[in-house]
């Protein structure tokens, strides 16, 4: 009796060598981060490294970038929730929005609207970016993904890689491979704004604008998904396509809506990106796309609030992480390693917490 209990216990405790390896990676990551943190804190106490003001700017920049990641991540997350595959081309949908923003803004600079009434011009730019991205997303779904509804899981993923390539290089050849510089917003927007009159919370106008617009769009999206009839059918289709169809929901149309909404959010993010970094090129979509996917997984795939939260955290981590962790190690040129930090976050999140912070929500077919 006792021997069998022992056996059970030992079986439960017996660790596969893969598990030990993963535990080793975990410990190494924690130790690495801890030492880096301590080093940075010591540097800071000694008055070396970035000042408090620099840290504040990094945090604000990280949040601004994070909200954009969150907007893009929504598209990944919703599509994964509904169809169960990674829409690799979503980064290019975002790039399409950024490109459109550039062309519209340049046009408004020419007509003078950009200088005369910036707000109207910006609204028009954002609307046209949303429109372009939505059209791209819906067309891609119609042409490439729809006929792969029942294909094995990796087939649509590989297809989406092809679509991403096609869109990227189409943009390169149609619009030229040069980096396009986005027109400068009015001077008032470049100055720092004292938020809440606190005195110490000075945020650059464009970043504040980006954060506000992104948060408002997320709130609107949340309202649509949680409170409207369209949103309810989207959630139903994400839960179970077959049953949703039996309940009288037009599954195809709902899937198109999902792509359209995700595209619109990516369009907003694209115009914000162009405005903030003031540069657009054909490969603008690649890195933000991958990172936004990381954000979606970090928050929990299929989980809308999770995508927003994941984006915010990833942006923050990417903005602060290199200086906070790597600088403490005395590694030179840490800002070059920003993307390494993001990709390391991607690997760690997917390996150790693939269900995300807030839990994933997948359709019945994709669970398990």
């Amino acid at each position, binding site marked *: 009796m006792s021997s069998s209990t022992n056996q059970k216990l030992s079986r439960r405790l017996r660790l596969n060598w*893969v598990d030990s390896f993963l535990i080793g990676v975990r410990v190494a990551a924690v130790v690495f981060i801890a030492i880096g943190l301590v080093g940075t804190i010591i540097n800071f106490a000694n008055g070396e490294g970035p000042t408090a003001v620099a840290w504040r700017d990094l945090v604000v920049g990280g949040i601004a970038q994070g909200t954009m990641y969150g907007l893009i991540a929504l598209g990944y997350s919703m599509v994964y929730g509904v169809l169960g595959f990674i829409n690799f081309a979503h980064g290019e949908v975002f790039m399409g929005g950024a490109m459109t923003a550039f062309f519209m803004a340049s046009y408004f600079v020419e007509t003078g609207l950009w200088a005369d009434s910036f707000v109207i011009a910006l609204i028009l730019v954002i609307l046209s970016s949303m429109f372009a991205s939505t059209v791209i997303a819906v067309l891609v779904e119609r042409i490439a993904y729809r*006929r792969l509804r*029942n294909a*094995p899981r*990796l087939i649509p993923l590989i297809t989406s890689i092809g679509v991403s390539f096609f869109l990227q290089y189409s943009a*390169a*050849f149609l619009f030229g491979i040069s980096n396009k510089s986005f027109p400068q917003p009015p001077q008032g927007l470049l100055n720092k704004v004292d938020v809440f009159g606190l005195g110490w919370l000075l945020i650059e106008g464009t970043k504040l604008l980006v954060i506000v617009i992104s948060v408002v769009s997320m709130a609107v999206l949340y309202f649509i998904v949680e409170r409207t009839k369209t949103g309810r059918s989207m959630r139903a289709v994400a839960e179970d396509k077959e049953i949703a169809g039996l309940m009288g929901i037009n599954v195809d149309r709902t899937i198109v809506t999902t792509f359209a909404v995700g595209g619109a959010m990516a369009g907003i993010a694209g115009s914000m990106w162009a405005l903030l970094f003031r540069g657009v090129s054909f490969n603008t979509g690649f890195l933000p796309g991958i990172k936004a996917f990381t954000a979606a997984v970090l928050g929990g795939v299929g989980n809308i609030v999770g995508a927003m939260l994941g984006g915010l955290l990833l942006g923050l981590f990417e903005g602060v992480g290199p200086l906070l962790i790597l600088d403490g190690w005395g590694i030179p040129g840490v800002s*070059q390693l920003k*993307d390494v930090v993001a990709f390391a976050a991607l690997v760690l999140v997917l390996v150790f917490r693939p269900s995300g912070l807030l839990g994933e929500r997948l359709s019945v077919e994709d669970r398990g």
Partner: protein
Amino acid sequence: MTNGILDVRKVIRAGLLAGLVMSFTSAIGMVEDFDRRMIIDGLFSLGFLALLWYVPIAGYKVGDEKVLEGMEIPPKSRKHVLAGVLVGLIGGVVLLALILITNAMDLRDVFIRLSPNLVALLTFSDNPADPNFGVGAIFLIGMPGLLGAVGGALHLVSPRLRRQIVVAPTAIIVSALVKDVIGQIMRTFGLDTVVRQLYRNGAVRLVPAIIGAAIAFYLAGRERRETSRIREFLTHPDPKVRTRNSLIVGAGSIVVVVAAPWVLGSLLSEILATTGIFLLMALGLNIVVGFAGLLDLGYVAFFAVGAYTSAVLTSPLSPFFSPEWPWWYTLPVVVVVGVFAGIMVGTPVIRLRGDYLAIVTLGFGEIVRITFLSDAASPWFGGAGGIRQIPGIPLGFDTISGSDPEYIFYFALALVLLAAWVSYALLNSRVGRAWTAMREDESVAEMMGIDTVRSKLSAFIVGAVLAALGGALFSAKLGSIFPTSFELLISIVILVVVIVGGLGSIVGVVVGALVLIGVLGGPRQPGLLQEFGEYKLLIYGVILVYMMLKRPEGLVPRVRRQRELHEDELTQDDWFEKKGELSELEGGA
């Protein structure tokens, strides 16, 4: 088109699509850039091929009916020709509209290639300021109409004649595109005068083109074609004869392959060597993706690791450690490092589900590249400046480097044969069967006692070692390596090669590499058609999507794989016809 009634919506849709394809190739600058390369001297350029290729296909396809089992085959009628003509005409009108708009307003701020030069080219005017719209309109609408009619008419003729009509022009186009190969072979055998008779400025002369088309037309029409004769030769019923025949074929192909670099000259050997290195990696990736079903998007990382290991150990300019070993000595180290890299990347990801695994490996690939690129690693690996002065492969009498592509090709060939042999041996071994079982259904495989962790990891390790060896050869060939040589593009292009060839099919991967890398070229390496330049990346994307939608099993599919993808006819029809959701396609990728 059933019962001879013209399906107007279908025709309009196909016509608009044809117009869109023509407008797109014009707007991305393909037509203009390719116009310099002629196919038939003074008559037809590659640019116009890029412009018009889709029209006959559209004209044919508009009359296409999917015939499922048990359906009546609809009657053919002249309506097909009419439909084809209409498709071409609509497409032509779309293209003409684009040209007129381009001429009327300056779109170059947005679409940089929609310029007066394009208008001049398509309206056959020498002066960009003075387009010739009369001629242009006749050509731009008439030519697609004619080609559409030809496409539609293919429905009316017998299958034999259809084959002849398709083969004859294709043969001429192909012989013009591979002019470098044919010309070089002939020149090696002292047939310079013949080359001059056949080609001018890289294009087939008009008279040889007509004669060649006639010959191709005749050959395509023969009842017993050469391919079937070869197949019979290889599958002779008598096993003794069969063995003898395959030995003859094997010996013959070895002679051809060994002689190839000397017959083809060093310029083409360069392409062969590049193709060999990419083929080596494709065979490695085929083990990971095709056999074990693990979609690795960061495969280039192993390639980079191998290249850097070899470079550090051989180059006198390696920053932190430079033993200046001969290339040969580095091979065991490269293998060990490859195994290590395979374990390091493989272990964390094997528990993940397929698509997450793809993204994590992509992340690893990018981490490796950015790390090599960063200042932080430059004291070890030279940062963006890379590692230079890699000496090449010492062979006693000479040192082989990038300037001797013939020898590099032999090395690549040896490694490819090794990779092919490893693939073949593994596939028919215990671990190969474990991969197959695992790919078809992981939980069932696990329940049958297969150690999935070990199987997956071994696939990763074998793939990593092959890529690392490819990297070692790559560094010896280039003489200096930079982090930018190891971008994500390489992983994707190799994936396209494997998928186009046929996942899991060794022969397929060889065919895929020859067709894609040999003809189009690697991401940064030129192929046979150097005109394609950067456009090949666009074409890779299109090919990937097309293959996934229309032929996911690849050009030369592995039998089992085809079975997995087309589990039963019902599912297949469902998949292609998009009619309802009949049943879930289980297993596979």
